[in-house]
């Protein structure tokens, strides 16, 4: 019995030491990442609405601005897809050490910040085009 407990002890300690990212040492960093996500997630609606507006305004393929409108639609779609891809790929390494989780979150913070910038700049450019 004593040997059984001794052999199981490392496993028990490993399970007990599993880091909960939302309440552990990286909780603040996790919150920062999600805050950026939460800030731009609603912009999906803006992208959708402005794409409709561009299609409505630039529906004549013979007009001189048509090519620019197609390019703009592409940029908006890419920005939207950037957010969807980021979310699909965002997987917290639950079994990793706090140090590895920190590194992961730091990388994700950089990535989601780029997504945010892409979305906001695409929306801003598109709004200028529709005014």
């Amino acid at each position, binding site marked *: 019995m004593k040997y059984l407990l001794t052999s199981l002890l490392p496993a028990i300690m490993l399970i007990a030491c599993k880091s909960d990212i939302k309440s552990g040492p990286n909780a603040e960093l996790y919150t920062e990442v*999600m805050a950026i*996500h939460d800030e731009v*997630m*609603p912009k*999906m609606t803006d992208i*959708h609405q402005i794409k409709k507006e561009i299609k409505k305004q630039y529906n004549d393929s013979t007009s001189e601005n048509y090519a620019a409108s197609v390019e703009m639609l592409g940029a908006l779609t890419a920005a939207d897809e950037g957010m969807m891809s980021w*979310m*699909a790929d965002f997987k917290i390494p639950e079994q990793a050490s706090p140090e590895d989780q920190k590194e992961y979150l730091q990388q994700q913070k950089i990535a989601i910040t780029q997504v945010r910038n892409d979305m906001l700049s695409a929306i801003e450019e598109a709004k200028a085009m529709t005014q």
Partner: protein
Amino acid sequence: MIYRLITLACLALLATSCKDASDKVLPKLGRTTTNAAGEEVPHKVRSWTFYNQDSVEVTSASLSGQPYLADFFFTSCPSICPKVTKQMLRIYDHYDGRIKLVSFSIDPKRDTPAKLQRYANNLEVESSKWLFLTGDKDFTLDLADDYFVAAFEDPDAPGGFDHSGKIILVDGDGHVRSFAEGTDPDDVTDLFADIDLLLKDYEGK
């Protein structure tokens, strides 16, 4: 004499204050329009067709005549959706098929019927009681306008997918009758009362 009058007044007050709660009628939410005949037409969700988790085509017409609950989500949503799904599951368990749940995916690229089926299986829910639907993304986001616009106080505010996780109660004719913040368990508990009220109109038919 005065005491008799006071007693009568109190009894009258008691009688009026004990009005049956079931007299409450859920309003039809959203902007009302006027048709050519001058009649007021309440807001209604447009017709739709999607594929469900069993790869079966589902239309809004198939839900005609029965109330349902709707939300908009996607399986890879990292923040709000899991909370809302948890509340939808709570509704699912409580009503056990008495009211259908319908979840529209706004990420059809990744949320294929097969992916939705795995998602539903993980939740251990039956497709006859909870539909997970996928279709054209632009159409889905436009459709969200029909569901969510009724939940905004300002009728001129842009609707659409606001990512707040609202759960919308729809009647058998496609009218939005109530909603709850799906991230707020207490708000969902309040929604139960509206669901019960609406179900009374349909059960026994």
